[in-house]
């Protein structure tokens, strides 16, 4: 009975948050509407990383590479295929991120802890250098600009994106991704990942082929990160090498730590918190907002290691 009420409470909360996100573009002014859409996209990227950090215990410092490949994959599809097709862009971005994820997963999962972190970081930098210097294809430093594809489901709807419908589209994709990720983490597969996080030698002794589980975890995570990249590309109509640079990976790790790892929604809250801090501090510190944000982040690592959501959970339980 207790479990039942817990689940009801969960879906109720889920519905309320979803409803709030859905009405947001109708009531918010232009700036904040865009802000909320961006939070959803960055939240999806942070969620994808949470699958690794929070559920498998592997801190990837290279998620910008998957995000970037999603972006550039979508860009290439939108620039080469006439007329530009939304679903093709989505597919291209996912394929791009997926191929990279297979590659990175194969090498990086042989390593543990900080070695995994450094390897993912280095992989993302390799990719950054390639994008930055391969000017003929990627546009080099300037990146690629393209037009927003029209939104169409054959036979049902077709039309161009307005900021509001784009927001709903992003919300739909992110919600679906969240539900899939949640299902994954609650599946037997997800439980094995958590077992690896808790005690790797023991999980191995129980007969699980750890490397395979880790490879699949990195691939799934990379795919969702790529999906976030596609959404970002469609929203902003460009792909730029700055988004592949490892500082973006670092920011995504910050979202996770601020929001609370191992919760899926925590990282989204972390992204929202980060961007709110950025907005707030930009008023006083202009482009140097990372000074106070960095201080807050460092303090949170020391004093609130479970993140905002973990902290709230702890408070509510006690």
């Amino acid at each position: 009975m207790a479990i039942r009420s817990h689940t009801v409470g969960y879906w109720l909360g889920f519905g309320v948050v979803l409803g709030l996100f859905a009405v947001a573009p109708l009531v918010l002014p232009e700036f904040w509407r865009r802000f909320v859409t961006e939070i959803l996209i960055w939240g999806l990227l942070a969620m994808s990383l949470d699958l690794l950090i929070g559920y498998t215990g592997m801190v990837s410092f290279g998620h910008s590479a998957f995000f970037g490949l999603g972006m550039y994959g979508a860009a290439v599809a939108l620039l080469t295929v006439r007329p530009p097709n939304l679903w093709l862009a989505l597919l291209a971005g996912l394929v791009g991120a997926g191929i990279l994820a297979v590659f990175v997963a194969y090498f990086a999962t042989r390593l543990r802890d900080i070695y995994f972190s450094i390897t993912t970081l280095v992989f993302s930098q390799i990719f950054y250098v390639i994008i930055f210097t391969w000017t003929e294809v990627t546009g080099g430093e300037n990146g690629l600009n393209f037009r927003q594809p029209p939104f169409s489901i054959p036979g049902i709807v077709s039309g161009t994106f307005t900021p509001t419908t784009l927001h709903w589209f992003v919300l739909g994709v992110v919600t679906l991704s969240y539900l899939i990720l949640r299902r994954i983490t609650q599946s037997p597969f997800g439980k094995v990942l958590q077992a690896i996080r808790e005690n790797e030698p023991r999980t191995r002794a129980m007969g699980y082929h750890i490397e395979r589980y880790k490879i699949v975890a990195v691939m799934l995570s990379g795919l969702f990160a790529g999906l976030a990249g596609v959404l970002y590309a469609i929203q902003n109509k460009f792909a730029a090498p700055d988004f592949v640079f490892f500082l973006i990976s670092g920011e995504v790790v910050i979202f996770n730590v601020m929001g609370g790892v191992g919760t899926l929604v925590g990282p989204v809250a972390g992204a929202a918190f980060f961007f709110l801090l950025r907005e707030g501090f930009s008023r006083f510190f202009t482009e140097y907002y990372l000074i106070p944000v960095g201080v807050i982040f460092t303090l949170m690592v020391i004093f609130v290691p479970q993140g905002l959501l973990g902290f709230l959970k702890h408070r509510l339980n006690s």
Partner: protein
Amino acid sequence: MSVDIPFDLLLIQVVNGIVSGMILALVASGLTLIFGIMEVVNFAHGELFMLGAYVGTTMMVATGNFWLALVVASVTIALLGAVLQVTTLRPLLGRDPLTTILATFGISLVLQNWALYQFGPVARKIQEPFTGHFTLFYLEYPWYRIVIALLAAAIIGALWLFMKYGKYGIWIRATTQDHLMAQAMGIPVPLVHTMVFAIGAAMAAASGVLFGPLVGINHAMGLDLILKAFIVVVVGGMGNLGGSILASIFISLLEAFASIWVSPAQAVIVSFVVLILTLLFRPTGLFVPTPK
């Protein structure tokens, strides 16, 4: 691609590779020292290097004496390192080493943006202490580069002597081997940790000042270097001082050769590939025997 590379070009690149390898070794040995003793992966190391270079230029402008600038920058950044260690890393002692990456990443963001705020986005240059040249084939090779390599070697040599024979050096080695036992023998382990962090910071600052005249100084100069230093430290074997020095020279030489054919920006990929191959086949480092 033909293979007729002129021999003189190859030799020039050898000299270039060794010079930049020594600078890298100076940064990497501080990084590996810090890792060896407290399992801290110091993400802020590149920022300490960058701040060292800035303190160096400021002193140069104020006094005009390069050597004084070198000493003042090292001491200032050593103090900063000690403060950072006490305030942010000491509370993390005993937690997952990954949290130290996060904390030092936070510090690096703060320091980098503070430098941008304080010194502005325009690159600055430190005046070289000597401007002499000697002829290396068709090039006028600056003496200063040779002096840098020698100075870096001297600093690393001094560190090695200190670790081997100095009383505090022995403390450091004892703490690295077994910090509980060291504590039981009366070694003030927390103090040793702070000291090691300060030494590592000072070495980063010194290389910043030495490197300054070769490239412009800007707030982002630590980013490229820290990546390379990470690679070197992993390739050389985490916590292995000799290994990271060899790896620094090895990787810098490879990059110098690679830049004969491709642009320096792409030559970086060579060191990435070395890292990946090392991790796959010799995960404990290239220059240490693989444990059975």
